[in-house]
Every structure is written in C-alpha cells, then in structure tokens.
C-alpha cells in the first residue's frame, strides 16, 4: 500500500513555487509525446533533414517548355523549345514572431497565451527557396513566402518549447502545460490520432466487394500500405482473378488503376518467366494448386507480347503518359520507371526488393485462395497503426507546395499555349511575375485545415476520409481535456458503416486500447482511447545492421530460387524480404532478438517489434516480421526469461503469453508479465475508484460522466478565452482515489466534492435516481459553480461599420449620453463595462460612437441570464498599430445548484437533485452527522456498482483517520477483501464494521427501524443544468406561414404535441384537452365560409357606405359587414337562369357547433378552423383544387 497522504503540503509548495527546472508531473508530457514528436519530426535535427525537407525532395521537378511540341517533325527534341524546370530547394519554418513591420517591440517572440487571448492564431512563417533552371544554364533561385502555418504548442518551433513550470506561469500558461495542440483563432485545436492500416505488412483480405471491381475479380486480395520516408503513403492491393492471374491496384490522384502483376514483375528487374515461376513456387512442386495458378499467370501474360523489362516499362509509360503529368520530353521508359518508383511498393527503393516482396505477396495471395492461411482482420490492432498528427500535417504541407508548383507550371504552359508575348524563360521578371500570380499561401490552407478539420486534397493522401481530422481541445474540465490527447478514432468512413464489426472490442487490443473508455451511442467503439501505458513510436529505428546480424545467426540469403518454400518462412524487416529461415531457426532468431533487445545487446533497439508467426493449419501466414518504423503502438511489459523491461507491439502480442500479475505466471507458458495490472485501462478509466468492483458498463458511463463534470478546468482561468467554461468553486481532492490520481496531478484540477451520503429511502423525493440535497450543505456552498462565457464585440462586424480600412465606429461614450444617465454607472467613458458590473438581459454592455451619425450606440447583452462582467480584454491586431476595434468580455454566470441539476458519483450513478431538504428534517446519526446527499437504495441492485459501496466505506474510514485511501483496482483479492480492510478501519474508528449506523428521523427524533448505510462518497456536479434546459411557453412567437408555435428553446418555442400524444388524448377521451392543445393553444383562427358554395377563399366585401345607398346590387346583399361570396355572386349575376352547380373537388362538413356566427342576413358564416387549414385551402386552390365546406 502506498503512503496514505494527500500530499497537501507538497502541492501547496509546488503551487507557490513552481519548478524552475522542469515539471512537477513529467508524466503529463509523456502522454502527448506522439503529438509533439511527430510534429518535431518535420524539422531538421542533427543529420536528419526533417520530413518537410524529405517531402519537398520527393515533390521533384516541374518542367515546362516554351515550344509547342510538334508531332509532325521527326526529331522530338528540337521542337519542344527551351526547357524550364522548377523545384523547391529548401524549406524553413520560423517560430511565431511579431511581424517585421512592428519595429517598436522588444520581445519579438509571440507566446501561446497571446494568441489565445487575442483570438488569433499561433503561427510561424513558412518559407521556401524556389529554384529553376532553363535548359542546362545556371540554377537560379528565389525565396518565396508561404504565409504562416499554425505551430504546435511546445513543439520544436514553439516559443515555450522546454520552458519549466515557473516560466510557464509567467507566460500565463498552466504550470503543467504540455502542449500538443494548435491555436487557431483563439481556439485550441488538435489533430486526432487516426487508425490506419499497419505499414509495410502484407495483409490478406477477403472482401465480397472486390468481386464488383470487374469481370473475373474474386473476393481475395492482399494489400500493403507502403510509406515513403517523408511519411506519405500509397496502398497497393493485389487482386486475385478467377482466371488465375492477379492484378495490382493503386490509386493516383484519387483515381484507381489496375495493372497485371506480371507486367510489374517483368518491368522491375526484367525477370524471365522461369525466374518468376521459381520465385513463386519455391520448389513446392507438389502444390498443384499453386502450380496451376502460376502457370495461368504466366500464360495469361503472353497475350501482351512483352518480353523484356524495357518493353514492359515502355508499355506502362505509354499507357500512363497522359495521367502522370510528367515532363513531355520524357521517354516512355522513363515514365514507366517513374510510375513504378512512385506508386508501387514505395517503401522499397530497390527494384529487386520490390520484386521479392511482390513474389511474397503472390505466394500469400495464393495461400489465402487455397485456404492454407486465413484472412487477416483489418479491424484488429494487430494490423493497425496510428496516423500521427505531425506526419499528417507534413503530408498536407507537402501536397500544398506540390500543388503550388504545379500551378506555376500550368500558368507558364498556359501562357505558352496562348502565345503571350512576354513569355521568356531567360527573363527573371517573367518568372517572378508568374510566381506572384500563383498563391503560395500554404499558411492559410493549413489554418483552414486545422480550423475546420477538412482536408482539401487532390490526392486524398491515401486516407479514407476528407473531414473530421481535427477537434477542439475543450477545457470543460481537466479529465476531458487530457482525454482528447489520448483519443484514437477509427475513421469517419467507419462511422457510416452499417456493420458493427469494426466497433467490436477485440482481445488483440488489450493493453493498447482501453476497453472501458469509449462513448456509448453512435461513436461507440470507433472513438477509443489509448491505454495508459501505450506509447506510439515516432522515429524510425536504426536497424541497418539487423539483416547481417540475422545472417550470422542462421538466416539464409534472399535467393528464393534455391530455397524450399515448404520448410522455410520469410523474414521481413519493415516490409523488405531480408531472408528466409526454417521455422525452428526463425523462432530462435525471434527469441535471440528479443533477448538482445531487452538486454541492449548488438544495438537491437528496444522498440523493434518482433512478430514471429508460427506455421499453422489455416492460421495467419507464417513468417518472421520485424517492424522498426514510426507510428506503431508499443507498450511496456516485463520479459520473464531475463526479468528486463520489454516493449511490445500489437502484432507480436498476439503470439505472447502475458501474465497480468506475477501470481498468474505459468512457468511453462508465460513469456511476459504486465508491469501493472491496471495498465490496460486508459487514464480516465484508471481514475474510477474500485472499478474492479463495478459492473463494467458503469465504468464506461463514469468515463463519460467524468468528462462532463464541473470542476476546476484551468489554473490560469484568467487568461483563457474559451466560449464557455465551467468552474466549480469548492472542488476537493477525493478521500478515496487510486494511486494514479497523484501520478497525473489530478489534485490541481478537482472535479467534485466529498459528500456524506446516506443510502436510505427517506421522503420519496429520492425515487427514480433523484437525490436529496441537504439544504444547509447547499447553503454552505456544496457544488456551487459558475460559468464563464465569452462575449466578443467586434466593431468591424457591427451594423454601420464601413467596409474600408478606416474605422468609423469607435468605442467610447459621447456627449449625447446625459451625465446622469444610468449607463454611466456601469459603462466608463471609454465605452467599456466596469469589471464586476451586473448585466441583465437587454442591458447595455458597451457603447461606441458612430462617425457617420455622431451618435453613441449602445451594444446590448442578449442572453436570458443575469451575468457579471469578469474581465474586459482589449484586442489589438498582429502589429499592434490599429485603433481598438475588438473587445473580449468574459461574463460570469453564477450557478448555484438548483432543483433539477445533475450530480453523479464516480460509478456511473447519476441523479437529479429533487429537493433541498432542511437540515433539521434530515436523518442524523448518533454523532450528529447529517448526510449531504440522500440516495435511494434502489439505485444499487440492478446496477451492481459495488465500487460505490466500497468507496463509501473507504471514504468514511479515510475521513475518520485522515487517510487518503488507495482505490486502485485489482489490489484486493478474495482472500484479502476490501470489505475487511476498510471494515477494520471503521471498527477502529468506533463504527460498525460494515459501514452501517443507526440513524434517527429528523422529524420525530425516533430511531429508524433499520440501520443505514452511510459514508463518504466523492460527488461530481455534471454540467447539465436545468437553467440551460428548461423550456416553458404560454404564448410566444409563431411561424409566419402556419401561425403555429415555433419550435426550439432558444426561440421561446413550444414542445411538439405530436401524433402519439394526440393518440393518447383521443384514447383517454379528453376531447376538450385535445381541442385546447391542437387548436386553441396552437393556430386557432376564424374564417368566413360561404353558406352556398362552401368556399373559404371567396370572401369579398361590399363597401357598405356606397352599396347600400346606391342599391345598385340587387341580389345577394352581403352580411352586416358587407361580406359576400364573390364566386356565388358572380355566378348568380352571370347566369341567373341556371342554378350554380357545385364544382368543388373536396367536400367537408362542418358541424353546427363550429359555426361561430351566422349572420341572419348575408350568405357567409364565420367558423373556427386551424389556420393551417386555411393555408391548405389556399395552397390547394393554387393547384386548381377547390375545397367546399358544408356548413350545417
């Protein structure tokens, strides 16, 4: 058991004197490491040029000619004219700095808090050096500004990169700020981890949808995701065709292409048919299945009539010339080579390596088809890795730069095509003119990407989604905030999938993805969180010496032709075939490597993943697969043979025996043991006390509710500008908490209060999960919180603002506001509110003067809650040289708990406060203790949250003895029970061993017939409050068309009384109520209806003054108001002889009770109808359909 102390003194010390050298909780920096390291990898470090530099190298050159390229001339070379090639030479990203324009500043660095408070972005300048060359003349280059790209906070390009706590506090950050996010328009946004297929590993797939790809396609295929050194990727899929051949599929600019595999095999190394035959067969001539396929494969290619590699390359080049967009003067062979280099197995630069791997893919494909091996599960973490934020960021920058470069080329070739006279490749002015025409503003595009999460891309970046890459790091409370950085999304594509297989919790994910921490509902199983100890590698390891090492230990060379495929398995290192070995040797190699890597021998890196797949009947394809690349999930365990720490990945874990605790080690079987039995849980799941006592769904709920609870969200709340922020006034450290609570420094950000909780059915107000709050506890501040809301006033967007650069609205109060005007009490001369001012809905919150009218305009506060002005921020522009046009006002809304607010314990037991019960009436114990909270015992049997009961006991004992109780799951066992441990503590404090106490009724003073379970439980106040939710309406706004009440709480609308509710009222026979709801309280209206023709839309009025006097109209004198039916009168006048026949299409009967007024004279009646009905009549009339009402 760890020392049971709250470490109050230590914490206070750390708060008073933040560390000047580092952090108090370095673990917080560890868990965002993948974000930061992947971002840092973009920039040069030592000999590493950085991913951006590698990327621009990969972009290559763009070539354009000033000739038109004539086909009629025999010699191709001459007709193209001058050859201009352009490329990006170098790239650099600066730290966020104040623009050069501003000469006055001393500190040129911009710090994240400024970006946050000023609602701007935290970005650094991106610059490239663009080079070009005409023919073979000298290379010329120019620097090009590419705008400013958002910089990840605390990354290598950040101004608070390795700043210790003390300085961070000075910079208005959290003392434990760990970064990992971007600041865009004042919002903290981060790129979420995304699951992508594991790189450099061939996976076998069976997908029925493959059949639809074309004739002869089958559901079999093998696929590999290949990653270039700049971390951009290409997926190659090999399809099995029912005619025995195989097709290689890849995509280029979002368009998919398939090539016969033979074409590639030949093109790569000019392989002979025999070489290919032997390479695939590997002496396994008895395998007639494979033999047949290979034969078909070879035979089917004969139709192409291509023998040599060059022929194949030329063929490829010819076919792909149009789509590739490479220089026009390239030969077909060059194009073919380029195609294979850039799109086929791009992780292997060497054609022979590609050839070897293709052979392996074919063998695996045939093994899959024949049923020798099973399909791999792409939903299993075994075949997955993480797309890291920094890598994705780099990919996008690379693509945007490539696009810009292509744009330049397009512009020039357009000029050439249009024969613009200024085209002169040797003229630098022309080049710079073209360059200025093209937008190189990558910065704006990156800001847009981060702000929206939308990927605007021509290539699609080998990803399955185009949006949802970024999320806001909401600082609702600390738990929610940190979870963002550990969340892993399966991909937006899978969210729409109808099948639920992708959401399944697989045993393979043990230790990498938390089984508890996933939301319920739509994103369930798709949005996961990394386990606590799971790391993600961010660098490619140094493994060049591994092949040689393995040769020396018995691995044979890659000359597959002389090897027997039946008793040799493939050894691959990052998707490169490095050799072959018999299964026993391969197994020994794997054990040796593991021993070496754990002991640090032979420079084998610890993060090397050694996946030895043993031969099996119909299992996974055997082999020894080594992975050293970045973006893999890894986790620490202990290697039993030498007792040293090992780092394992999800691929190898499947073939390991890992004991959860040292007790569980089976000497014959176990290879590893967990360092900690709780390591498989995420940080949040680990924070649930005694979660091992709870029914598992309750722990899932708690992971959600922990993220919704009000708490201390930030210690630098004064410097935050979040739209909405919740703050709990008196948060406490929980008495009962797991050890990790301290490890992660959760005490800096409490999310609840220790409450005395009695489990008793006392008043009836605790039914159905309601809870009773002690009124006195409430008055003493239990659960008191406030909401901070941002109110931004930007004069540029205010009404009356001029479009031009000069501002015509200015903050201030003019002389037209009288000296004794009330608003002078709350608003200062400068037009800004005084801090502490109370603002009610409709109150003036700021004033500004309009230049055009010379009047003071009052800016009103429009919200339905009373608030207090907490802070007023004056926001300037980047250079700080403009007049004040924008202010940010933080408003504080006090939110004391009220009836209807939601509370929860840490065990998924949520409830609503139903009463604030007077303290004198509350039950009390012999010692005079009264519960703060009463909950109903019925909350327990069906939910089985025993953890909460244990917490109650532990909390009570902890409070009595002054102990911080350790609530780490899996510390107690059947022999050493928690009940006994805490029961003994309770007994020592003079209480009953089981946590019960006799209690007395507060009302009568009589002792209850039963003893009551009472203890201390940590309660969270959830952010769902009635004040944000209640909806009432008597009368209010109506829809202009239907005149029915509008919907929506914000618009003071009503709640829909729908069909089913209508059915209920009909069933009850409550006709009056029905009438009231659907008619009188909705769109009651009266309408005139003609007694004769029954029409509602033919009302006409006689001008009584004129008609009665003149008496010109003889018949059909209107009613008392002069109303008459126009149709009937017209008909009567038109043809007095023939009586009007009713030409209505629809006839309805109106009972007499609905006729409101039936004037004796005249032909119109007034009836009550819903307004929509009148509307319907009008609509139908427009369609030529008449409705006739028969008025009784």
């Amino acid at each position: 058991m760890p020392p049971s102390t709250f470490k109050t003194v230590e914490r206070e010390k750390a708060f008073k004197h933040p560390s000047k050298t580092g952090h108090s909780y370095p673990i917080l920096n560890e868990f965002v490491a993948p974000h930061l390291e992947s971002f840092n990898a973009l920039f040069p470090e030592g000999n590493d040029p950085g991913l951006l530099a590698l990327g621009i190298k990969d972009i290559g050159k763009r070539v354009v000619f000033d000739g038109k390229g004539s086909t009629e001339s025999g010699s191709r070379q001459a007709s193209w004219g001058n050859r201009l090639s352009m490329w990006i030479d170098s790239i650099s990203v600066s730290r966020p700095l104040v623009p050069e324009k501003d000469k006055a500043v001393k500190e040129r660095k911009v710090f994240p808090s400024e970006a946050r408070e000023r609602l701007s972005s935290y970005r650094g300048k991106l610059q490239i050096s663009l080079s070009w060359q005409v023919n073979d003349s000298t290379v010329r280059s120019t620097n090009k500004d590419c705008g400013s790209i958002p910089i990840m906070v605390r990354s290598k390009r950040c101004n608070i990169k390795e700043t210790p706590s003390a300085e961070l506090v000075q910079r208005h950050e959290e003392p434990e700020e760990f970064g990992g996010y971007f600041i865009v328009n004042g919002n903290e946004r981060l790129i979420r981890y995304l699951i992508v297929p594991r790189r450099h590993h061939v996976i076998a797939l069976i997908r029925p949808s493959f059949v639809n790809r074309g004739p002869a396609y089958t559901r079999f295929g093998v696929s590999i995701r290949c990653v270039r050194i700049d971390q951009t990727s290409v997926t190659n899929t090999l399809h099995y065709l029912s005619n025995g051949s195989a097709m290689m599929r890849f995509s280029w600019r979002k368009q998919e292409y398939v090539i016969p595999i033979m074409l590639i095999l030949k093109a790569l190394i000019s392989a002979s048919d025999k070489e290919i035959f032997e390479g695939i067969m590997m002496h396994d001539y008895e395998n007639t299945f494979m033999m047949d396929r290979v034969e078909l494969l070879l035979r089917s290619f004969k139709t192409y009539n291509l023998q040599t590699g060059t022929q194949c390359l030329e063929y490829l080049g010819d076919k792909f010339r149009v789509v590739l967009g490479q220089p026009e003067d390239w030969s077909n062979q060059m194009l073919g080579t380029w195609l294979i280099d850039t799109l086929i197995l791009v992780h292997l630069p060497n054609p022979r390596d590609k050839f070897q791997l293709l052979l392996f893919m074919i063998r695996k494909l045939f093994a899959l088809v024949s049923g020798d091996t099973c399909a791999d599960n792409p939903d299993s973490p075994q075949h997955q890795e993480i797309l890291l934020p920094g890598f994705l960021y780099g990919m996008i920058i690379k693509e945007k730069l490539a696009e810009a470069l292509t744009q330049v080329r397009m512009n020039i070739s357009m000029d050439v095509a249009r024969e613009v006279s200024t085209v002169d490749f040797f003229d630098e002015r022309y080049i710079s003119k073209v360059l200025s025409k093209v937008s190189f503003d990558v910065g704006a595009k990156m800001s847009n990407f981060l702000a929206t999460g939308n990927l605007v891309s021509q290539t699609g970046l080998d990803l399955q989604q185009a949006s949802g890459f970024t999320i806001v790091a909401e600082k609702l409370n600390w738990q929610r905030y940190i979870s963002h950085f550990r969340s892993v999304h399966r991909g937006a594509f899978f969210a729409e999938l109808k099948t639920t297989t992708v959401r399944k919790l697989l045993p393979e994910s043990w230790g990498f993805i938390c089984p508890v921490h996933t939301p319920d509902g739509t994103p369930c199983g798709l949005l996961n969180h990394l386990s606590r100890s799971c790391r993600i590698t961010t660098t490619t390891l140094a493994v060049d010496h591994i092949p040689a090492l393995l040769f020396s230990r018995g691995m044979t060379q890659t000359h597959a032709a002389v090897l027997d495929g039946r008793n040799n398995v493939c050894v691959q290192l990052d998707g490169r075939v490095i050799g072959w070995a018999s299964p026993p040797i391969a197994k020994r190699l794997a054990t040796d490597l593991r021993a070496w890597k754990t002991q640090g021998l032979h420079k084998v890196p610890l993060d090397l993943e050694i996946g030895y797949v043993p031969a099996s009947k119909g299992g996974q394809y055997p082999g020894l697969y080594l992975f050293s690349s970045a973006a893999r999930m890894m986790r620490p365990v202990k290697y039993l043979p030498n007792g040293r720490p090992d780092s394992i990945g999800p691929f190898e874990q499947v073939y390991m025996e890992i004991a959860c605790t040292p007790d569980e080690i089976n000497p014959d079987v176990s290879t590893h043991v967990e360092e900690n039995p709780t390591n498989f849980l995420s940080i949040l799941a680990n924070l649930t006390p005694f979660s091992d006592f709870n029914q598992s769904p309750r722990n899932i709920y708690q992971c959600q509710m922990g993220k919704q609870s009000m708490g201390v969200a930030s210690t630098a709340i004064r410097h935050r500008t979040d739209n909405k922020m919740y703050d709990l006034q008196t948060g406490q450290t929980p008495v009962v908490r797991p050890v990790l609570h301290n490890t992660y420094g959760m005490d800096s950000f409490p999310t609840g209060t220790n409450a005395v909780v009695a489990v008793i059915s006392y008043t009836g107000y605790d039914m159905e999960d309601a809870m009773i709050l002690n009124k006195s506890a409430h008055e003493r501040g239990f659960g008191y919180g406030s909401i901070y809301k941002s109110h931004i006033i930007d004069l540029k967007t205010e009404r009356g603002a001029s479009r031009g650069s000069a501002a015509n609205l200015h903050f201030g109060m003019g002389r037209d506001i009288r000296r004794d005007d009330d608003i002078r009490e709350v608003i200062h001369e400068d037009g800004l509110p005084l801090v502490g001012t109370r603002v009610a809905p409709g109150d003036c919150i700021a004033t500004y003067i309009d230049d055009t009218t010379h009047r003071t305009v009052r800016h009103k506060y429009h919200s339905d809650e009373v608030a207090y002005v907490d802070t007023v921020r004056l926001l300037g522009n980047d250079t700080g040289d403009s007049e004040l046009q924008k202010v940010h006002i933080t408003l504080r809304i006090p939110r004391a708990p009220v009836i209807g607010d939601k509370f929860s314990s840490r065990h998924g037991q949520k409830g609503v406060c139903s009463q604030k019960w007077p303290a004198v009436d509350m039950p009390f114990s012999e010692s005079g203790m009264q519960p703060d909270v009463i909950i109903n015992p019925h909350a327990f049997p069906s939910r089985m949250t025993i953890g909460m009961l244990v917490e109650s006991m532990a909390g009570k004992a902890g409070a009595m003895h002054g102990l911080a109780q350790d609530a780490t799951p899996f510390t107690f066992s059947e022999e050493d029970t928690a009940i006994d441990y805490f029961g003994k503590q309770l007994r020592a404090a003079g209480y009953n061993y089981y946590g019960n106490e006799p209690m007395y009724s507060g009302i009568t003073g009589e002792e209850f017939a039963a003893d009551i379970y009472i203890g201390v439980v940590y309660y969270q106040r959830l952010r769902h409050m009635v004040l944000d939710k209640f909806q009432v309406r008597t009368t209010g706004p109506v829809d202009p068309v239907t005149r029915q009440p509008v919907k929506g709480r914000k618009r003071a609308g009503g709640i829909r009384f729908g069909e089913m509710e209508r059915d209920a009222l009909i069933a009850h026979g409550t006709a009056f109520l029905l009438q009231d709801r659907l008619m009188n309280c909705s769109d009651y209206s009266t309408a005139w209806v003609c007694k004769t023709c029954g029409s509602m839309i033919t009302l006409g009025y006689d001008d009584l003054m004129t008609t009665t006097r003149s008496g010109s109209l003889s018949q059909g004198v209107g009613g008392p108001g002069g109303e008459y039916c126009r149709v009937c009168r017209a008909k009567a006048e038109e043809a007095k002889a023939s009586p009007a026949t009713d030409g209505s299409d629809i006839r309805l009967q109106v009972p007499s009770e609905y006729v409101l007024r039936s004037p004796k004279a005249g032909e119109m009646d007034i009836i009550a109808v819903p307004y929509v009905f009148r509307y319907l009549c009008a609509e139908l009339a427009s369609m030529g359909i008449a409705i006739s009402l028969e008025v009784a």
Partner: protein
Amino acid sequence: MSNPRVRIRNVQHDRVNFVLEGVDIGFANSLRRVVMADIPTVAIDIVEIETNTTVLADEFIAHRLGMIPLISTNCDEGMRYTRDCTCLSNCKYCSVVLYLDVSCQEGGTMDITSDHLQVVGYNSGYRFTSGPAYSDPASDGGEELSKRGDGFGNPVGKDDDSVPPVLITKIRKGQGLKLKCVARKGIAKEHAKWSPCSAVSFEYDPHNKLRHTSYWFESDERAEWPLSENAKEEEPPRDDMPFDFNAKPEKFYFEVETTGALSPKEVIMKVTTNSG
C-alpha cells in the same frame, strides 16, 4: 412530561454534553431542532463590494463572509429582525455594519482573514462611498443596544490569538479588497450561516432495549456493533430479561457543538424562549 431533568456531563467553551431525562422523545427532538435551527444569531447578510482585485469572484467572497461566525451574545434580545424593524434599510437596532479594507503593498502572499473585519460603531460616523454605515432608525427608544454582549458583531476570536482566524482569501502585491458588510439577525431555517451549532449529537437507548431499531449483523450482533460511550450510563440488558413493549425512551444524550457565535450555555438556555 413529568419532571424534566438535565445533567450536564461536560461543558467547554464551544460544546456542552448533557443528559436529558424525564421528557418524552418528541420534546427531546424538538430541543435538538430548536438548537439547530431556531436560535437567532448575527451573520453577514449583505456585502457591498467597492474594490475587489483578488482572485476570487465577488459572490464567492460574499459567501465566505456570510459563513464567518460573529459574536451574537444575547442576539435574541439585543437585536431586531430587519423585517420587524421600522427603519428603511439597516439601522443600529437591526444591523451591525462591518467593513474590510485590505490591500497588499509588499511582495509575497498575504492572508485576508476574519480578523480584518472591523465593526463600524454606530456613533463613529463612518461613511462609505455609497453612504453612511447605518440608516437612521425610524424611532428611538429600543433597549436592544444595551442588551448586547461584549464585542457583539465581531468575528469570533477576533482579538484572541489562541483562536486562528477564518481565512477569507489570499492576495498578492497590488491586490486589495474593500467592502462593507451588513450583518443581520436571522435563524438557520432561513440560511445555514445563522446556525449557532455545527453539530448536535443525539442518542437514546444505546443498548437498543426498546428495539426501535434492528441491527443488521452477519453472525453476532453484540460482537459486530460497537456500543457508544453513552451505553455506560445504562444497565446493559440481561439475556433473560423479557422485552418490555410498553417502555418509552427516558434518557437522551446530547452533545451540542457551537460555532462560537453563542456560548453553549446560551444556546441551550435560549431554547425555552425560542421554542414557541
């Protein structure tokens, strides 16, 4: 109610422990309820904040001020309820005005505590920016003022070094807090801050001879249920003793712990005048 008897077992400055006998259960419980909720005390009820540059929000500080116990000796007679008073807002008869004006000029952290609260004497003529400290009483002649005890309205333990003051907030150089508090008379039914007690323990029948309750036990009731201290006062039941179903609880064990606003003696004595 034949013959109520009180036997005081222990009195300290902030608590009293006594046994009440000769009353029925309803009476005993009403004593408990009155002690908790019906004894009037003085507590800060209105706070006018003039300057607040501390880290805490205005309402937070106001709430904290409200919770500070103020000396309320003979508050029952020494003060009027504001609602009963004929004055317009807060006169000397129905309120005590306190002010607090602290600012930190030096480096380091400074505590603002209840010791910084100063009662404004009604003769001092002290004026706040918003006006005079007290409003004019509508009529003279109340005897309230003379009935007040020493240091009435002052925070508990104000000039006593042995009592640690109540921390209100902490400030640093350049920050300050200036405010006016109006303390009023009230009872805890209205708000917990007016409660003179922090806890009242109440027990009868420690041996459960009356079988009002049934103790839940795993195997052995006596072994599992600890007896309270009060059990020594009563004869333990013998196993062969028949159950007397007519018996009524007779002895009630009380311990009243006060906040310091009133002495334990006064709390108990005032019950009689306030239980009507």
